[in-house]
């Protein structure tokens, strides 16, 4: 990115642009929301080219048509012979059935029209103040209804007397027996129950079950009685009676149908009240000369025409008139007929919607014509004129608002992205710079931005009354009417103060947003959003605290705590049921995973211990992913392994040092020894006559030769015993080797008159050894025999291939001879002389031959056993056969 894009000036300019754009976005947004799409949604549409095409026009025309049709319906309903008569009788039952006012009292229950209208205006569905009605069943199965006051008086004056069969028969006890005035108490309680609309038996139980009413003399009048609660206040007197109950009691057709009667009354009064209200307050809104709206409606079956144009009243000229209406200049019309196919209009409107508008009032049958038109030259200043004027005024603004909203939103977005990209960068380096605010904890920073904004919103909300925004009726200035019937729209005006408030709001919001947004971007870039958050800090402290607590517990405490948690969850499930099922399941899964992991880790540790125990000291248990307990244990085991390994390596090193020392010492001994041997030899060549000198020279020669042998053998024995030699393993035929060895020693043996008796198998006996080292083994034991065997005796050499356990074969070599000198030494000492210091070293060789042979044999995987029995000396060498 170019450096100028990161300069402070650029950033400041972009911020100012962002603030400016946000103001424009807010203002145009407010205009779009309130002016163009008001709550009715259709004052001005952005995409329309003229008022007549707008939804607002369509809506107003629909509203006008609805209003006109409603008035026609009301007029048809209320007027008799073209006149409104407040004294006309309304038969409630008949009206409820067919919605028509007959003017006669046929069912028995009828009221005056004006009384009904008044009653309907007062009627309030949620008013429950009317007293219950008492329904009494007569002996013949019909009913008599009493108002509560009436019934109360009858009871108190003993006109009626309650009787309780269960009390009289003794099946139940009188709940008021023993009171001062049980009779009065009983009446009070019965009235109370009825007033509240409860059931006697439900309230008092068996005692009042099957209660009856008698007259003063005890004659049974009513077999049952109860309260009827769906009662309304009567404010009108019915035709020919004092009240509603009187009519119902006196009219056999209505007996037992009290609830239907009340329903019919409620229906009638609420419907007619509205109709009368519309009729009386409608005014002359749609009369000719008051509106640009013209309607021509015909009921073909009744041959009746409804119109507000005096030229169209003749039914016989209906078709011509409709054509005239259609073809009038500047006419925007809608013609609705029963068939959707016959619908005509030069507006972009829906035929079915208009058919619904017309048929909703249910004035006509299936044969009607509805024609409505608006003169769009608006010669009269009515609602259409107002609408057109408002549209002409606001539509250009709406379009500008729409365009500026989109453009400014786009510019704002670009500015924000640009600012986001360069946030934290400077023109002169490539580092990320965080300012002091960015170093605040994330949540505190967020609060520092959000809290002032909330205060701002609160301040604006409480100190500013809002936009100049008010509801206005389409039709006239009667707001109550408009409110009541939903026929209204909202006017709106934007004052300079409003603009100032919105701009202030937008500026403040955008500044806060920029602070928060840019800081957020810088935090994300610097990866400090989470790192520097309060939540992370709290989590860290909690984790550290818990770790400190947990790490310092011993295993027993940990297991007990875990077990308490595990069992606890299951108890919770057992006590509180399925709410804890998922938790218990989760705990079970966790326990299973934990136990399996634990077991796997234990196996690994066990394997590691086995490895280390079997000598693989460099083995390391892989413990990176183990849980802490097992990890500690694995690490301890690894440490043991490492410690042993170090000890072994130190041992090997010291062995090697020892061998090196011995080797070097032997080199140093050899040089003077060379001179000794050479000069002894030269002396011998001088032919001393003195036999004594000859004797001395013999001794010198023998001892110097022994010293030579010793130095060589000591080095070899040291190397062999420390394992400091490399083996070249190969398949070797021990039979062949034995023959070769016997051949090599043939002269030596003959010199001591020793006979070698060899019993060797014909088949080869193959073993896997280092041929030269194996020769050293055999050479040493043959040398041993040649030196120490009694002259003239036999040396037995045996070689066998033996079946060992599990089908494995071993090659067993043995050699035995009789010792010339008594063997005052045991077998172990013979092979371990190198490490024992207390044995006589008077023999002729180094005495290390057997030790070397044994070590070499064992090194190559064989066993070397020496057996001494009296003068019998036996060596056994065993190797696994190949």
């Amino acid at each position, binding site marked *: 990115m170019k450096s100028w894009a990161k300069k402070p000036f650029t950033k400041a300019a972009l911020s100012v642009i962002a603030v400016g754009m946000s103001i424009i976005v807010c203002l145009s947004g407010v205009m779009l929301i309130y002016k163009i799409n008001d709550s009715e949604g259709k004052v001005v549409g952005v995409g329309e080219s003229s008022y007549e095409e707008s939804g607002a026009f369509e809506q107003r025309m629909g509203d006008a048509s609805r209003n006109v049709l409603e008035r026609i319906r009301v007029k048809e309903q209320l007027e008799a012979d073209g006149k409104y008569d407040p004294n006309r009788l309304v038969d409630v039952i008949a009206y409820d059935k067919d919605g028509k006012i007959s003017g006669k009292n046929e069912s028995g229950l009828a009221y005056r029209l004006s009384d009904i209208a008044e009653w309907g205006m007062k009627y309030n569905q949620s008013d429950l103040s009317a007293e219950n009605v008492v329904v009494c069943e007569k002996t013949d199965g019909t009913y008599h209804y009493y108002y509560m006051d009436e019934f109360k008086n009858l009871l108190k004056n003993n006109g009626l007397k309650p009787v309780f069969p269960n009390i009289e028969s003794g099946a139940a006890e009188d709940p008021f027996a023993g009171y001062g005035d049980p009779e009065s108490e009983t009446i009070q309680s019965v009235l109370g129950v009825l007033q509240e609309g409860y059931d006697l038996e439900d309230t008092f139980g068996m005692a009042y079950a099957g209660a009856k009413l008698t007259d003063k003399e005890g004659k049974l009048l009513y077999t049952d009685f109860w309260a009827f609660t769906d009662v309304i206040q009567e404010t009108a007197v019915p035709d020919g009676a004092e009240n509603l109950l009187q009519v119902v009691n006196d009219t056999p057709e209505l007996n037992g149908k009290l609830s239907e009667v009340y329903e019919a009354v409620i229906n009638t009064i609420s419907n007619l009240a509205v109709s009368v209200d519309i009729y009386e307050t409608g005014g002359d809104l749609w009369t000719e000369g008051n509106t640009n709206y013209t309607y021509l409606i015909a009921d073909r079956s009744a041959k009746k025409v409804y119109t507000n144009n005096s030229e169209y009243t003749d039914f016989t000229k209906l078709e011509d008139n409709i054509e005239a209406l259609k073809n009038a200049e500047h006419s925007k019309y809608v013609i609705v007929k029963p068939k959707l196919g016959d619908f005509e209009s030069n507006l972009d409107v829906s035929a079915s919607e208009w058919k619904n508008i017309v048929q909703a009032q249910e004035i006509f049958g299936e044969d009607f014509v509805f024609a409505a038109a608006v003169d769009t030259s608006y010669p009269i200043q009515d609602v259409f004129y107002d609408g057109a004027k408002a549209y002409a005024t606001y539509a250009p603004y709406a379009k500008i608002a729409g365009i500026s909203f989109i453009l400014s939103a786009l510019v704002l977005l670009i500015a924000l992205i640009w600012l986001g990209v360069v946030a934290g960068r400077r023109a002169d380096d490539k580092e990320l710079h965080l300012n002091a605010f960015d170093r605040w904890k994330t949540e505190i920073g967020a609060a520092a931005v959000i809290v002032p904004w909330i205060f701002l919103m609160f301040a604006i909300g409480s100190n500013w009354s809002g936009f100049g925004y008010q509801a206005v009726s389409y039709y006239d200035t009667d707001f109550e009417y408009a409110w009541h019937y939903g026929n209204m729209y909202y006017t709106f005006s934007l004052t300079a103060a409003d603009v100032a408030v919105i701009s202030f709001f937008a500026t403040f919001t955008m500044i806060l947003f920029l602070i928060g947004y840019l800081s957020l971007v810088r935090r994300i870039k610097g990866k400090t959003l989470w790192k520097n958050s309060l939540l992370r800090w709290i989590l860290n402290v909690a984790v550290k605290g818990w770790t400190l607590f947990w790490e310092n517990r011993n295993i027993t405490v940990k297991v007990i705590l875990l077990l308490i948690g595990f069992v606890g969850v299951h108890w919770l499930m057992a006590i509180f049921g399925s709410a804890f099922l998922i938790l218990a399941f989760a705990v079970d899964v966790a326990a299973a995973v934990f136990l399996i992991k634990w077991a796997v880790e234990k196996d690994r540790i066990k394997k590691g211990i086995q490895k280390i125990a079997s000598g693989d000291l460099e083995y390391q248990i892989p413990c990176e992913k183990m849980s802490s307990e097992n990890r500690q244990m694995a690490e301890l085991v690894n440490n043991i392994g490492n410690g042993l390994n170090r000890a072994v390596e130190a041992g090997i090193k010291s062995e090697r040092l020892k061998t090196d020392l011995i080797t070097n010492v*032997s*080199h140093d001994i050899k040089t003077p020894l060379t*001179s000794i041997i050479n000069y002894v030899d030269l002396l011998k060549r001088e032919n001393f006559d003195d036999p004594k000198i000859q004797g001395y020279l013999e001794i010198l020669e023998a001892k110097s030769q022994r010293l030579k042998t010793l130095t060589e053998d000591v*080095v070899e024995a040291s190397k062999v015993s420390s394992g400091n030699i490399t083996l070249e393993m190969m398949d070797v035929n021990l039979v062949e080797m034995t023959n070769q060895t016997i*051949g090599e020693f*043939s002269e030596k043996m003959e010199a001591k008159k020793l006979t070698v008796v060899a019993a060797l198998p014909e088949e080869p006996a193959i073993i896997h050894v280092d041929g030269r080292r194996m020769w050293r083994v055999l050479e040493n034991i043959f040398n041993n025999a040649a030196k120490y065997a009694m002259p003239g005796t036999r040396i037995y050499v045996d070689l066998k291939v033996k079946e060992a356990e599990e089908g494995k074969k071993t090659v067993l070599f043995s050699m035995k001879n009789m010792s010339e000198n008594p063997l005052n030494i045991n077998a172990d000492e013979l092979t371990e002389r190198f490490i024992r210091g207390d044995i006589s070293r008077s023999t002729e060789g180094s005495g290390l031959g057997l030790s070397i042979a044994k070590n070499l044999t064992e090194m190559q995987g064989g066993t070397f056993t020496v057996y001494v029995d009296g003068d019998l000396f036996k060596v056994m060498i065993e190797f696994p056969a190949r």
Partner: protein
Amino acid sequence: MYNILVCDDDKAIVEAIEIYLSQEGYHILKAYDGEQALKILETEEVHLLVLDVMMPRLDGIRATLKIREKHSIPIIILSAKSEDVDKILGLNVGADDYVTKPFNPLELVARVKSQLRRYTQLGGTAKKESEHVYEVGGLQINDDLKEVTVDGEKVKLTPIEYNILLLLMKNQGRVFSIDQIYESIWNEEAIGADNTVAVHIRHIREKIEINPKDPRYLKVVWGVGYKIEKM
């Protein structure tokens, strides 16, 4: 008259060697470290060099390397180091023989003689006159004359020994087991392993080798058989 340069930092050893080799009629030159030896080689005509390894200033191994840049005279290394690795190192850097201390004077003399003969007679004496002459190093067997020579000196072998040696010489480098040798020499099946062959081999070695325990030509492959080392 051959000039032999003896080089060892131990004067006693040098003098003892001088005595032995003088008795054989050689002229001895003496040096006590590697540098001295190199100087003498510059000025004198030397036919053979006996060289110690562990010496001050310039040790035997480095000296051998330097000498081999200019001279092809036989070099016998005489060292207290008796390990296999030491021997291999010495022979690899260009020495012709390796004798360990303490040495047997007779053996040393024999090796000196052997090296000198080979060195001086190189390209002389009986060359391959017929197909029936087999040669390995200083060991030659002439089947036409039924004659065996080591470094030009005749060796007396019994007919069986001769036949065994001839078999091995004809197949240099190949390992023969005791049974194979038996069957091809005695022309009968070898029933039951026998150490007869091994005894004969031992005898042959004693006749043709300077040190039978450390054979130069007839090698024992332990547990497998015998072979003539191919050179």
